[in-house]
């Protein structure tokens, strides 16, 4: 499809847009939390794709390439809003020793399959992910929601693989804690003994 688009076939390009635009919007919305900004990312991403369509050489999947462009635009908007000068993810070394340990440990009251049908769940998930620091949020979005590999995520964000792993773990642990406090069954709560502080 992209090969056809590269020859000037607009119908092929439209098909690519149609297949990818919802994913791009979802990634941008989750990173930025606002529909207006997410729209900007969608538009900038596909305009940029037209501009640079000849440069795609097929080293990665098309979807990965598109999501990488979208993520960079989203990060650019995020940094601009915070008055920060650069667009790169800061590559300061993340330490596993600072990953938060679990505090509230309990079984969930319902299975995820029934929870997804609840209208109020979306609000809880949005709130929880918005509370993550953006450097952890973006890794969680690409890795766990969009299903990129650790290597693809590291490449898209300009991070080392070990940093991606630690940031992902931090995001997972924080989201687990938040959701379990809301969805956990207090009657099943367990208090880890000293040896379990590690987890």
């Amino acid at each position, binding site marked *: 499809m992209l090969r056809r688009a590269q020859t000037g076939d607009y119908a092929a390009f439209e098909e690519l847009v149609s297949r990818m*635009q919802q994913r791009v919007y979802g990634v941008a919305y989750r990173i930025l939390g606002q529909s207006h900004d997410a729209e900007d990312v969608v538009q900038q991403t596909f305009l940029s794709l037209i501009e640079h369509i000849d440069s795609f050489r097929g080293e990665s999947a098309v979807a990965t390439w598109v999501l990488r462009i979208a993520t960079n635009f989203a990060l650019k908007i995020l940094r601009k809003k915070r008055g920060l000068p650069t667009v790169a993810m800061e590559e300061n070394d993340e330490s596993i020793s600072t990953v938060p340990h679990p505090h509230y440990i309990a079984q969930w009251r319902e299975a995820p399959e029934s929870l997804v049908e609840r209208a109020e769940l979306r609000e809880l998930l949005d709130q929880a992910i918005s509370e993550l620091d953006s450097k952890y949020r973006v890794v969680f979005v690409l890795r766990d929601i969009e299903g990129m590999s650790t290597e693809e995520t590291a490449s898209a964000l300009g991070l080392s693989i070990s940093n991606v792993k630690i940031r992902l773990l931090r995001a997972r642990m924080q989201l687990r804690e938040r959701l379990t406090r809301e969805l956990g069954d207090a009657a099943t709560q367990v208090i880890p003994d000293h040896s379990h502080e*590690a987890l």
Partner: protein
Amino acid sequence: MTCEELLLALNEVIDDQSALAIYHDFADHLVGCNPCQLVVDNIRKTIHLYKAGEPYPMPAGFQERFKDALRAKWKAKFPHAMT
């Protein structure tokens, strides 16, 4: 197993259950540790919920503006390709 090793093993096992075959200490620990089993289960369910969520609907009014912008850009890039 140190705290750090446990946490790193946790991440790998969440991604791939078969990693338990590599992280023997973690696998042994998990068998007898209800809190750790629950943490693994909680994280798996957390990821499941985020992956299973309905896509965010794109605002209806945006689509037309978006398509117009794409067409204009395409025409500039491939002036002879569009009829």
